[in-house]
């Protein structure tokens, strides 16, 4: 099995921390398998069902086209430009023959590897500083083996993808849904992109998904969002509610008390995330004592702040979105509102802790899959690469990192598929693909087309220094699984909302 793949498997690994050409089968025992959390390397064993897929390296058909739509102007440009830069950085690296570590590990996901490997991997080879963390992320003497790599960017042994240069076609969505639809049609029908990476708001995603489905276009949505998209053509690489809301609510109730006040943006994301909180808080002994939904246009929060004070909660769950609504934080701080706060959207996205003067975000707790301050060596290396390319950027947000690793993940999937044929690449995405992203290990869960993420609970102190109080090295996107979604077997093209799950009936 390994030997079959030797000659043409493009995936990457390294032997000694420095980058090197790809190595295959025979050298397997010399390798470290401990990159990332319980990490595994590629190229050991492509799952059986990939055997027989053509893996020609011959450059054919010109450049590989990756279509990337984000808002470069208008209200959402704040986030769109970051994401655009993430895509540019990834494409530059791919064309320079680099890739992020990782590869297919099978449908069983992380840890299933030993079933396939001819020679089981060995944890550590003596020269690594091996750590053990428990599931709370704190260091312990037993638990999950964890080793920190200096960098996860390694040589791909490929130039571009399959020897073809990667071309990024990245038009401007102008924060306007109509333009989004037009651009999507253009990229699919006229530019015939091999992969579409696009979408900040859920509205933008829903605007283009019908078109994506009409043309069976391979589509990657890289944003953190409310969850529930079960679409055979769509792969979601951002974190979703079960990965962010549940850990943070659980932690906050343990730490600060059961009385929760939710203040949320009055649209899909805010309402659905609030529904998650409503459903989950009672399970861990919490109680929602107040809930307010604020229209996106509101920027004066005096009344909302007074309502929070009248309710006297133990902590406040703020699900506020957009630049108007982040006014809440300085206004609340100036009014002397000193409740601990939790969120899933702030800091990692709009870097409020950098923009607002301390102590506006004092005691803010945020569950994120990425934030620029993550203190790992691989992230610092990533941040350094980023600012070398874009020295004027103010911040690297969560979604920018998602876009970055998603483009790398696409390159990897094409190499596994051996072709840019979109149906084949979708199968490769469903091969149980894992990747060492700057955040940590991510795993594309085949049945739901969502990623498991390395989740961290970040908090800002009175001086807005970020520290991490807990880590969950891998949280599965389990909600769609719970609903019985299996996109490998049954094709679907819809978005589930919590109302469809009896769990949410109160």
């Amino acid at each position, binding site marked *: 099995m390994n030997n079959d793949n030797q000659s043409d498997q493009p995936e990457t690994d390294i032997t000694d921390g420095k980058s090197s050409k790809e190595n295959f089968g025979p050298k397997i025992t010399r390798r470290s398998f401990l990159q990332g959390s319980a990490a595994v390397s590629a190229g050991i064993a492509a799952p059986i069902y990939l055997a027989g897929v053509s893996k020609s390296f011959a450059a054919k058909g010109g450049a590989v086209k990756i279509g990337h739509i984000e808002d470069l102007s208008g209200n959402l440009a704040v986030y769109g430009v970051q994401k655009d830069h993430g895509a540019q950085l990834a494409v530059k690296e791919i064309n320079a023959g680099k890739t992020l570590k990782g590869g297919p590990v099978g449908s069983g996901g992380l840890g299933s590897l030993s079933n396939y490997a001819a020679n089981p991997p060995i944890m550590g080879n003596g020269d690594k500083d091996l750590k053990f963390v428990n599931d709370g992320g704190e260091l312990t003497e037993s638990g999950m083996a964890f080793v920190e790599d200096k960098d996860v960017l390694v040589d791909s042994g490929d130039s571009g993808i399959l020897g073809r240069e990667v071309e990024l076609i990245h038009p401007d969505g102008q924060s306007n849904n109509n333009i989004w639809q037009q651009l999507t049609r253009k990229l699919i029908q006229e530019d015939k992109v091999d992969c579409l990476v696009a979408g900040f708001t859920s509205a933008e995603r829903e605007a283009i998904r019908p078109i994506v489905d009409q043309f069976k276009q391979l589509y990657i949505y890289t944003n953190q969002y409310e969850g529930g998209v079960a679409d055979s053509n769509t792969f979601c690489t951002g974190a979703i509610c079960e990965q962010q809301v549940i850990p943070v609510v659980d932690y906050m109730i343990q730490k600060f008390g059961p009385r929760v006040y939710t203040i949320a943006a009055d649209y899909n994301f805010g309402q659905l995330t609030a529904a998650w909180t409503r459903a989950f808080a009672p399970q861990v002994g919490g109680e929602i004592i107040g809930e307010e939904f604020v229209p996106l246009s*509101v920027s004066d929060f*005096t009344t909302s702040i*007074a309502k929070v004070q009248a309710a006297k909660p133990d902590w406040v769950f703020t699900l506020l979105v957009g*630049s108007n609504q982040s006014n809440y934080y*300085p206004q609340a701080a100036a*009014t002397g509102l000193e409740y601990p706060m939790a969120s899933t959207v702030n800091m990692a996205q709009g870097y409020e802790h950098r923009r607002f003067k301390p102590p506006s975000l004092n005691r803010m707790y945020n569950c994120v899959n990425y934030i620029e301050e993550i203190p790992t060596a691989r992230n610092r290396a990533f941040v350094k690469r980023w600012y070398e390319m874009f020295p004027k950027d103010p911040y690297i947000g969560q979604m920018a990192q998602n876009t970055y690793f998603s483009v790398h993940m696409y390159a990897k999937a094409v190499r596994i598929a051996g072709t840019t044929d979109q149906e084949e690449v979708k199968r490769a995405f469903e091969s149980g693909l894992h990747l060492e992203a700057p955040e940590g290990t991510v795993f594309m869960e085949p049945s739901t087309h969502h990623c498991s993420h390395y989740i961290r609970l970040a908090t800002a102190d009175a001086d807005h220094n970020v520290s991490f109080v807990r880590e969950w090295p891998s949280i599965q996107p389990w909600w769609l699984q719970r609903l019985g979604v299996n996109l490998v077997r049954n094709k679907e093209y819809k978005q589930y909302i919590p109302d469809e799950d009896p769990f949410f009936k109160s």
Partner: protein
Amino acid sequence: MEIDALALSLTYQFGTNAAFLFLSALGLIVILGMMNIINLAHGELMMMGAYAATIANNQFGLPFPLAVIVSFFAVAIFGAILELLIVRRFYGRELSALVVTWGISLILGQGTFLVFGPFMPAIKIPGGSYSYGGFSFSEYWLVLIGISISLVIGLYWLYRYTSYGLQARATMQNAEIAKALGVPTNRVYTLTFSLGAGLAGLSGALLAPTSTIAPFMGQQFVAPAFITVVVGGATNVISGAVGSSVLLSAIKTPIGMAYGAFLGTVALLVAALVIIRIMPDGISATLQKIMDRRRARHTL
């Protein structure tokens, strides 16, 4: 919770809401009332004020009150240039002026984004807070309420007792006659637009600490500003701005407190539509009528 604390909190909310509406609308209503120009770039002028204050405060280390004054003059000068180059060609063509100022707002918004990037670092809200009976109150907002009131007094003084005020009122009544009487109407227009722009910049700077400093931050003020202006009417700038911000806040605050921000916003918009149906010329015209009637009763 004690009733008196709740009442105090409601009063405070009422004051801040009214001050927010008043400050949002101030520059707009000066330009509209005096010149009949609907300035759709109003939000962007406020944004410029906020940027000027932020830059003065963060990069040049000016204390915040000084930065606010700097931003008033910076935006006033910009307004004067805008008037000389563009706006002056649109007197008497209100609807065209509306379109052209919208074009200016597009350029200013995206231009700021291209030059300064997505966000500016915020200004810390000055002052602390008081608390009473479970509620707390921001000193800075209390100061803003005070500043709003003194701006009303200042404007009243400006229009009542200065030669600019006299000329401006004459021009507003009848530009042609004023011109014939030797009032330099063009200069009055430039000054008025500049004053309106400067006040927008001042409001933007004052509200900057409470807000995200971003290129499109002006948009958040557009709807409240226009609603306040429409409800206020153009008959008398000062009474219109004060009357409508007080009335609208009186509607929005209790509804927002009882039923949440969404219905608070809806109430504000619906109230505007209803008030316009009852008082087509706005509150200032109605106040004027009441005053006239009272004066008539005295004279008769």
